[in-house]
């Protein structure tokens, strides 16, 4: 399962947690736990989005507290 996920990532495939859970015949919560493990082991990392613009009080690309909510994404760690 874990090797299968790494294989998919190396292959350039983009999948949602739901898709992976369907493929591996398990639940999203299990997939998430496995992703956490792989992150911990240094195989993958979360895509971290950082934005900065000159305007200190600029809300154009942020909303209230946080940056516009992007989906959490994981990618292979090079």
């Amino acid at each position, binding site marked *: 399962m*874990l090797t299968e996920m790494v294989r998919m990532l*190396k*292959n350039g495939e983009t999948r*949602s947690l739901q898709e992976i859970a369907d493929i591996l015949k398990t639940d999203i919560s299990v997939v998430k*736990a496995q992703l956490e493990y*792989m992150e911990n082991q240094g195989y993958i990392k979360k*895509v971290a989005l950082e934005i900065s613009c000159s305007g200190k009080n600029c*809300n154009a690309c942020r909303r*209230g507290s946080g940056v516009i909510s992007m989906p959490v994404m994981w990618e292979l760690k090079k």
Partner: protein
Amino acid sequence: MKQMTIALLGQPNSGKSTLFNGLTGSRQHVGNWPGKTVERKEGYFAFDGKNYTVVDLPGTYGLSANSEEEIVTREYIASGKADLVCILTDASQLERSLFMLADYTGIRTPVILLLNMMDVAEQQGKEISSTSIAKKLGIPVVPIIAADKKSYGDLFKTLKEPETISTMLDENILSDLYKRMERGVFKQVFSLLPEEGIGVYSSSWLAAKLIEQDSMAMEVVWDALSTDDRNKLTALLSQVRDGSLLTGDCKFKWIESLLRDSVAERKKGAPKRSRFDRLATSKTWGKPLSIAIIILGLVLSMVIAIPFMGLFSFLLSALSLLITHGLSDAGAPALIISLLCDGVLTAVTFALMMVVFVFGISLVFGFIEEIGYMARISYTFDNTMAKFGLQGKAIMPFIISFGCNIGGVTGTRVIDSWGQRVTTMALSWVVPCAATWGVVGLVSSVFFGSGAVFVVLSLFAVALLHMVITSKIFGKQLIKDSDRSGLIMELPPYHKPKYKNLLRFVLNRMGDVLIRALKIIILVSVLFWALSYTADGNVENSIIYTIGTFIEPVTLWFGLRWQTFMAFIASAMGKEAALGVLASLFNTSGEAAGIWAAMSGQAHVNTSSLGGALLTGISKAEALAFIYAFFFNVPCLMAVASTQQESHSVRWTFRIVGYYIVTALLMATLAYYIGLLIF
């Protein structure tokens, strides 16, 4: 035994310290682990005639030894100093927090499993059968709420049982899973180790850790092996690829088997996947659906905005009349009145009108995001990014650019390859920011009324085409590595929008756009007002007119009058600036007439009908040309500066700027001639 040591082991935030405090109260000793900066907490309590020492171990994900905390934990567990280990897990997320137990399995110190946070699990509608889990593990499993001392009863009862400290965790199920590992790696490693294990470790545990390339396990094993076996082991392990994935797989399978039939979830919190979501994430329908939703959003935002336009120009005319009369009665100089009414007041109205368009679009986008649909858009457009030769995550800067292109440019930091980054920046420029959208909405509504919707839709279609071509042109030189790494995306569940958040978001964005627009429009319109001012009142003697009429023969090729051409140039500094230029250059009946003629009754009428002034100046085809030139122009000076900063390349920044100016004028020309055919 009158004295017993209990170690609390668990992942971060599993509640160790809470339980530690609950058990020991004020009888604590805090120090450091020898030679480490990690805090060591020991506490004491007495129960049923026994003295207990409790050790609060640092929270770690598992039992590998990578960080200082992990080494402390691992060494303590290996020392065998604890008579009993209590592993704390978060009952609300057992799939992940049982990993500690899986990693512990095979260590031969008595252990009990504490299912902490039972209150949270209950809230989630989870029913956990601790007896079922206990049967599979062969150790006591105790539900608890660490934060509530009244729930400690079961734990105390378990501590009293004599077999608690004599029974071992059953490792057979996990070892069997290990033994089925591909190419029999585990079996081979296992067969080299002493059958009875070493110290607290079973051979199965050691074999798994060896496969994970764990150096501490290697040290333990090394001394116990003959030279011959050492060589065999090294040879074996050197062939193992991704050992932690192999063992991790077994551990998670073990966790799944443990939880099977042990956890029942009342299906209230977990909504089934709706038909809508199947459609939204489907390979064929996902994209058309998101495009339809975006178009709907655009149309809706125009429908909301257009009525306000009329209202604002009515207010402007009333106010302008009032001010003119009031000031001229008070004997104010004509110059001041002209500046106020033609420059400042028009600028303010323009800024307000622009913001109305920002209102609609932010509302729609905010809503899409608030319900959790935005993440689906990123997901469905992933393969489109691939067609552009870009990583899937390049969608992020594009979405941010809808708010602000500067943010979009800096957002390209998510992309690791330089060539891909620069290409993404070049592409993101075409995404209309809030201000662009405001101006486009305003100008196209003035000229095309309800037909503006079609103008806007055509802009978006052409923008997509622009992106395709741009990606080809820039990608050819910049993107050499075609290797694309995949992504795993977590799509958040749909939820009811929080209207308060939505409103705050919309108002914030409107406020930002308004303030910026006011500053820029007023500044630019006053500047252009000054440039077109002449002492004798004849505009034909002004600098701007001289320059304008000089260049007009050329700008007309692109379907741009000299005024709209200047607005186009100004918009490269900041999109709002275009409105400033238009406000000052078009604010009179004839295009050549000076705005300082505002004292005459004629001028009052003209100032009031703002759109009218623009309309008399230019034809529809020319307006279309301007809108296209404007839309595809460089976003703003700040975006150019950030592009230079982020790409570290002046050359490529200039190339992108040049490319955008040329294509914008090309688009304008095309739009102009197509416009001539239509109108």
